[in-house]
């Protein structure tokens, strides 16, 4: 009757068996398959984001005139305040609704970009 195996012998058997299996799997196509899957997911995500971004931009563009109208009330107050500042003041007052609308859209775009960056 042989003596029972020591813990070290069992560990050695397991380690060698595992190392053989690991070496066998090291260079097969699995890793490249996973990396292709990740790339495909990233491309799909980029397409979805691009389409959503284009739709969002189109919608925002369509709202620009409405937003300008909404901000025109502010331009009256701004005009009164800048009335004493000559032609430059009048020009600024005339541009104020467009500037405010553009600024609001820029903030929306920046916030969306920030969220998407965190998500990506």
């Amino acid at each position, binding site marked *: 009757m042989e003596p029972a195996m020591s813990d070290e012998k069992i560990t050695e058997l*397991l380690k060698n068996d595992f190392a053989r299996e690991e070496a066998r799997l090291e260079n097969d196509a699995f890793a490249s398959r996973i990396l292709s899957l990740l790339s495909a997911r990233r491309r799909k995500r980029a397409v979805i984001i691009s389409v959503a971004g284009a739709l969002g931009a189109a919608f925002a563009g369509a709202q620009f005139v409405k937003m300008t109208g909404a901000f025109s009330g502010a331009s009256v107050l701004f005009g009164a305040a800048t009335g004493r500042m000559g032609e430059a003041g009048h020009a600024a007052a005339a541009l104020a609704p467009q500037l405010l609308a553009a600024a609001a859209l820029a903030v929306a775009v920046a916030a969306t970009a920030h969220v998407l960056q965190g998500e990506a």
Partner: protein
Amino acid sequence: MALSDIELVTLAKATQSEAAFAELVRRHQAGLRAFLRKFTRDGAQADDLAQDTLLKAYRAIQGFEGGASFRSWLYAIAWREFLQGKRKSAANDRLAREAAPDADDEIDHSSVSELSIDLQRALASLEENERAAILLCDAAGMSHAEAASALGAPLGSVKTYVARARERLRAALHAEAAPVNASPAKPELAATRSR
């Protein structure tokens, strides 16, 4: 100089670099799959689990806080995936103990020694926790603490699993050896035993 796992994880987190994660995949996929293959004894199931694990790890990399090694974090995802799949699947029977490895197992038996086959049988006779613990600690070379982190088990339990698994493997291999020694059919095993 090659970057460490933690440096690659930091890079992947900071720059959302796919290249950094790809290096982690290349570095750990073989070990992870070897563990899962030895554990499940089903090459296809093991590779599916490994694939799900790596894709999940990619999505969850921002949540890796560095408290454990990247490897044990990765194996913890794999272990949870396995447990989840086991709960969901009605095909648990696949994991039922069978004396011989599955027919669709991709192990090339022609290159596997008789001793290795005995070892697979002996491993298959262990409880799941014991098999996972001894594969992680003795075969994959993890510390008990890393294995505990991967299995989500207390350190003391993992030590117990490993000790019990060694005891059972010893008994199973010893039992396998007895008829082998009497027969010239397995000279390699007998030779290994006598070394």
